[in-house]
């Protein structure tokens, strides 16, 4: 039986096709989100990759910010429940999930069954999200992907203390003007994201294993900063951007196989 999960965020659309609730037969990430052609393209590409048509899909679940306006699914489920399910499938020992996306961040604590115990979210403030890194990358005149390489070469991270993105931007500009090198500033930026997110995450309790998901989890600089700040090992889920879609497909399978 094939089931499909689609996660429509503000900045990207992700689709996963699952066979018998076990095997990922297709996955696709399109870097545009709700209100664009992204969801439809991701859907079609994933089906194509799996060699299937929409009639082959037994059940479809949609999640993410754009779930309310998406027409094609059998059910919509919150990204909290989907991320929890997806990460539990990939890493059964995970107990705390820290998801940092383009515009939001969340922390979810789950139990041994993968059920959500508690969660906290931040969607109001850009600090501690992918957006913060984009702003800072622009100030450092590099691509967001390069921040990781820069901070790897730091010898002494520069403190970026402002929690407001606008204030932090001024702060980074002052550091540059004062002659601080970009490597140390990049490391300071990663620390700032880590601190901000952990401040949120501590509220659900940080039980090991701590696992990161979301686009920002691909940035090793942030992952290392988190581990250092936490003084705990921090893992990264395989396919960190699509854990929500995986969870959605699994939840679709759960229901489809029951009926």
């Amino acid at each position: 039986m094939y089931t499909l999960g689609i996660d429509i965020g503000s900045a990207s659309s992700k689709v996963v096709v699952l066979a018998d609730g076990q095997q990922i037969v297709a996955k696709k990430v399109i870097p545009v989100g709700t209100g664009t052609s992204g969801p439809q393209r991701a859907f079609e590409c994933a089906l194509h990759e799996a060699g299937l048509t929409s009639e082959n899909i037994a059940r479809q679940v949609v999640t993410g910010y754009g779930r309310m306006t998406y027409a094609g699914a059998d059910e919509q489920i919150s990204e909290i429940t989907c991320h929890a399910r997806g990460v539990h499938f990939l890493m059964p020992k995970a107990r705390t999930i820290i998801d940092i996306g383009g515009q939001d961040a969340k922390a979810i604590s789950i139990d041994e069954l993968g059920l959500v115990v508690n969660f906290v979210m931040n969607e109001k403030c850009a600090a501690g999200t992918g957006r913060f890194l984009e702003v800072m990358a622009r100030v450092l005149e590099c691509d967001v992907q390069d921040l990781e390489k820069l901070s790897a070469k730091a010898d002494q991270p520069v403190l970026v203390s402002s929690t407001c993105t606008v204030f932090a931007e001024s702060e980074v500009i002052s550091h540059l003007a004062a002659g601080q090198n970009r490597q140390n500033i990049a490391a300071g930026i990663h620390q700032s994201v880590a601190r901000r997110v952990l401040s949120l995450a501590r509220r659900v309790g940080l039980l090991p294993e701590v696992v990161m998901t979301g686009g920002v989890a691909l940035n090793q600089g942030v992952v290392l900063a988190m581990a250092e700040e936490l003084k705990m090992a921090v893992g990264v889920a395989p396919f960190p951007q699509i854990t929500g879609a995986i969870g959605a497909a699994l939840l679709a399978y759960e229901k489809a196989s029951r009926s």
Partner: protein
Amino acid sequence: MTDQTPKTAKDLVREMQAQYYEEANRAHDEGRLVAWVTSISPREFLEAMDIVTVYPENHAAAISAKKGSMEMIDIAEGMGYSADICSYARVNLGYLEKGDSAAGRIPAPDLLFCANNICDTVTKWYEILARRLKVPLIMIDLPFSFTPETQKHHLDYVTDQFKEAIRQLEDITGKPFDYERFQESMRLSNEAASLWRECIEMGKAVPCPFNGLDFFNYMAQIVCSRGNEKAVQFFRVLRDELAAKVARGEGFLNNEKYRILWDGIPFWYNLRVMSKTLLNNNAVMAASTYPDNWAVNYDPNDLKSMARAYMGNFTNREFSFRYHNMCRMIDEYTVDGVIMHSNRSCKNQDFAQYALAREVTKATRVPVVIVDGDQSDPRAFSEAQFETRVQALFEMIGQNRRGNVAARR
């Protein structure tokens, strides 16, 4: 031959604060009880029972000054405390978990002594401490006054609570209340408070003999040690120093251009920028609404008088009091401009500021500028904003002078 050079108040206060913390940290070894206490509480009751008073607010300020407040705040916020609540509370609650800080340690309390004449926040904070530490909480409820005059039943309620506090202290210590020591503490407290007021009022002199920012350091003595002999001696030294300067016509600044009134608590984590900005513009902080809170004078033989004094600080008073007080200070201290600190931690003070600024300027023609910040949470503060706004204040004063508005000298 010993060095006969007398110590300045600045040297003394540094020494005395260090001694104060050492003594506090020794208290348990010496078999004395420790109380955590709010900043304008009637500590005379505790002094009577030889209980060491420790001030979490003062400790939080010290931690901030040593740039250690964010560490504590992160811990507290991780526990679920909102960034919206008072940063002194967040720093202290974070400190409780960590057990150490950039400003060292304070001894754990055997009891808590909370007076809410500064705000309602302390009641919530101290209740949490009582639950967390499982120690008795003595609550001195000093009702807020919506009217300019203090009402009789308010005074009755407070004096009854004083009696209840005495009973609670006897219960906790297992000893009878020492009324003699209490009298002595009250007498000394009043003396210190009178001297403190004399010192503050030296700011009326033109040129102003002191840097008002220094008073935020001296303050520790009137807050923490008001009621003992050493504090009284300290304030005599300070008063004599300042009186001598006034007699000589000596100002803190050689070229005093602007006289400023500061409203609120300073930015403890960045006193440097306050100092630098004023100095660079030949501005002196001649007056401040904050230190006056501790000029607590009353008749030591009358508990009602003591009640009235402890209910009467400006954070416990309504708008018209603050308005008249500020207008009076502007006049008596020959103030050119007012800087109000919109302190993210202090809603009690802040939500009257916009209206107060307008009314005060209307009445006195003196410009007022409001700066955003916080007492101990550096995230709420932007140096650039502070400098820009204060600069604008000086420009407004200059403009007024050229236009001969409120020509003062």
